[in-house]
């Protein structure tokens, strides 16, 4: 048995015993989804699928020992009937299942020492989060400085539709990561940290990065946060960013963001495409305003541009406006309109959505979408855009009705229908049973 499996099993058993714990919470989502699709390209025949899925999350505190916590979440499901929608003709697993989080966490009485072992998301400063089976240890000194070290076997971000095949991209992801971070933090006022992460695959280097981030929230007028990642192998910045937030009056939030990114440096060095490293970078700047004008009306606007310094023109821009009317926090209706311009192509997206509590634990929601596409430079547009020349809109929506039987138990039925450039008919029905309970004192 691999050590990680032993760790996860231990976490599982402990997490599953709320009786040993001072407090526990259990959340369960039981889902059934059925859908049918008539695609516009690819395989010609209409397809359908039925998926049964269970998502379970358990968290406990003081499991037998003061300061020991356990957390676990996972999913298990089965495709019933025809093949899944997204990959016709591709042999896929009938059963899906994954352990997403399975960790034991312990902190000392005064919270100066923290340990976490098992499958976890690691957030250690400016770099991206890692999903690993391993150990994280943090020591908080009396001088508001904490030091973290971590290491373990990395698991790729599990966003693929299938489990990796044996011959799938063994070179691409790291299979271990190790590093650390030193952080200064004045409680809720300021933070500054520097970190290091080394990711490898066997004997090959995948990434080696120096990360940093800093924030200052003391001023009432403005809050600031900045950070970055330096690719140590290339000796060049991979990503830099600054974020400013101001709340000059109650209910008004102003934001300004800037980021610089070299997309090529996101590609692991174990990939052939890493030889394009230092290819074009881009700058991204955006402004946003969000204003709760009254207790019942909120409005917002955002806009941003992306500039490629090595190119003759800006890549594009985006502008968006939104508004929401709220009544007693239980009923609201919102509208959001966004224009996205990528020079070659443009799209206008509008959403109208709302939630209404009908009483007796019943509630309903609706979410309507309209997308309009515009091809400005057909010669440079992708085949997807050319397809949109035939149907240059997407329209549809989602409707839901739910009932809260008790504060812990509720059920919902939702249906969606869309006509899009990719599918003349895309229908889906979802049934969901949710349990959300917690016990004991926090």
């Amino acid at each position, binding site marked *: 048995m691999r050590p990680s499996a032993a760790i*996860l*099993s231990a976490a599982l058993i402990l997490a*599953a015993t709320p009786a040993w714990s001072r407090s526990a919470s259990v959340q369960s989502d039981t889902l059934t989804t059925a859908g049918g699709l008539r695609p516009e*390209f*690819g395989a010609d025949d209409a397809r359908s699928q039925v*998926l049964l899925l269970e998502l379970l*999350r*358990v*968290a406990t505190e003081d499991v037998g020992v003061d300061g020991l916590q356990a*957390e676990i*979440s*996972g*999913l298990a499901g089965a495709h019933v009937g025809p093949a899944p929608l997204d*990959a016709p003709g591709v042999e896929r697993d009938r059963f899906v299942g*994954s*352990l*997403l*989080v399975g960790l034991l966490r312990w902190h000392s009485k*005064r*919270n100066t020492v923290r340990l976490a072992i098992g499958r*976890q998301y690691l*957030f250690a400063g400016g770099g991206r989060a890692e999903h690993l089976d391993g150990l994280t240890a943090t020591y908080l000194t009396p001088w508001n400085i904490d030091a973290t070290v971590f290491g373990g076997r990395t698991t790729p971000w*599990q*966003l*693929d539709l299938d489990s990796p095949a044996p011959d*799938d991209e063994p070179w*691409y992801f790291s299979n271990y990561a190790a590093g650390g971070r030193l952080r200064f933090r004045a409680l809720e006022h300021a*933070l500054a940290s520097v970190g290091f992460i080394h990711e490898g695959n066997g004997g090959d280097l995948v990434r080696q990065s120096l990360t940093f*981030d800093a924030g200052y*929230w003391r001023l009432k007028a403005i809050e600031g*946060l900045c*950070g970055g990642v330096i690719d140590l192998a290339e000796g060049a910045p991979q990503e830099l*960013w600054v974020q400013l937030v101001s709340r000059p009056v109650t209910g008004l939030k102003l*934001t300004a*963001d800037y980021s610089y990114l070299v*997309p090529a440096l996101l*590609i692991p*060095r174990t990939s*052939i495409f890493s030889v394009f490293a230092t*290819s074009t970078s881009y700058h*991204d700047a955006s402004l946003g305003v*969000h204003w709760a004008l009254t207790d019942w009306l909120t409005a*917002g606007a955002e806009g941003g541009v992306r500039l*490629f310094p090595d190119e003759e023109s800006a890549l*594009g821009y*985006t502008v968006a406006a939104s508004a929401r009317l709220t009544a007693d926090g239980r009923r609201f209706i919102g509208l959001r309109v966004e224009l*996205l311009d990528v020079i070659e192509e443009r799209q206008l997206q509008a959403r109208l959505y709302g*939630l209404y509590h009908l009483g007796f634990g019943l509630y309903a929601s609706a979410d309507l*979408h309209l*997308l309009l596409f515009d091809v400005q430079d057909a*010669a440079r547009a*992708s*085949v*997807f855009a050319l397809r949109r020349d035939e149907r240059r809109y997407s329209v549809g929506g989602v409707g839901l009705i739910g009932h809260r039987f008790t504060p812990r138990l509720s059920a*919902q039925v939702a249906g969606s229908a869309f006509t*899009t450039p*990719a599918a003349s008919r895309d229908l889906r029905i979802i049934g*969901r049973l949710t349990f959300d309970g917690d*016990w*004991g004192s926090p």
Partner: protein
Amino acid sequence: MTRGLPLLLLLAGCVASNGGKPPPKTTAARQPEIIFSHAKHQEQEVPCETCHAGTAASTALDKRHSPKMAVCGECHDVEEQSGCKKCHRNPEEPGELPRAPSTKHLVFSHAAHVKRAKDCLACHAGAVVARDLAEVPRPRMRADCFDCHNHMGDYRALRCKGCHESLSRYPIRFVSQFNHEGNFLAEHGRQARGNSDLCATCHGQSFCADCHAGQRATVLPSVRRAEEVGRQFIHRGDWLAQHALRSRAEPGQCIRCHSPKSCDRCHRARGVSVTSGSTGRSPHPADWLSPGSPNSHGREARRRITQCAGCHDRGAASNCIRCHRSAAKGGLGLNPHPPGWSRGGKDSDQVCQLCH
């Protein structure tokens, strides 16, 4: 992948074995065995520190500062057998002082409060009029804490950790009341990287996994949580029709979460890839392979190399190698490296050996 299934079944079984019963809560006894009047002691002007020594200097709530009987003996004759009933309801089985509910979840320093308030009664005013231990009220948050602390301000600014060790068990009814308004969805990643322990006061890691790792089940968060129509989920609505345009607008964003395989597999299946055989429809323009043309792949590759990697990053089988590898290795030797490029790696680098 199916390995997770038995683990979950085991988990479900273990949860069920507890019968879903809550663990017992700790509460103070209704009628304490010890008879004690704070009011009488206050009338005699006995300083609080006489009995609760060490409290004023304590910086945490991890220790009890209730007096032992020896402390009582400093003023009272505790050896006198006939007087037992003055303090003990049942002298045959003398009990202890009642235990207060656990407050370990609170961050609290008596020392800091005594320094500012100078008087214990600022928070414990109710204690001095209590004629019995059962009547001793604990400080109430709204009446006692919020007299001085701006809880609503702290709440809105998410300054929770000053007082709360953990908020993970508090019922949070309306997330919008927190500072998650506006473009928080876009902001949250960067904030979480630096300050994840702040997020952890309310959200467990499972909360992250719910969106960031749940898509193996082919159910998007916006579909699974259809009632949360107010949230700006990234892949909401007809994402399929707009994903190509979105990925062109923000190069590098897709690859942060998705591996190249997820692009290639779907494109092949849907027949929009050159590797799709006779039904294949290349997404590239006609003059894609013509150097110097406005649509030359080299120009696009420099701008959006992560999009190329989405379909073509196949290790030694990557199609760029065919032309760009050195003549000695049977290629055309077309140099794909940017000006001034230097890998700075070792000679045995596997990637270099693919072309050189």
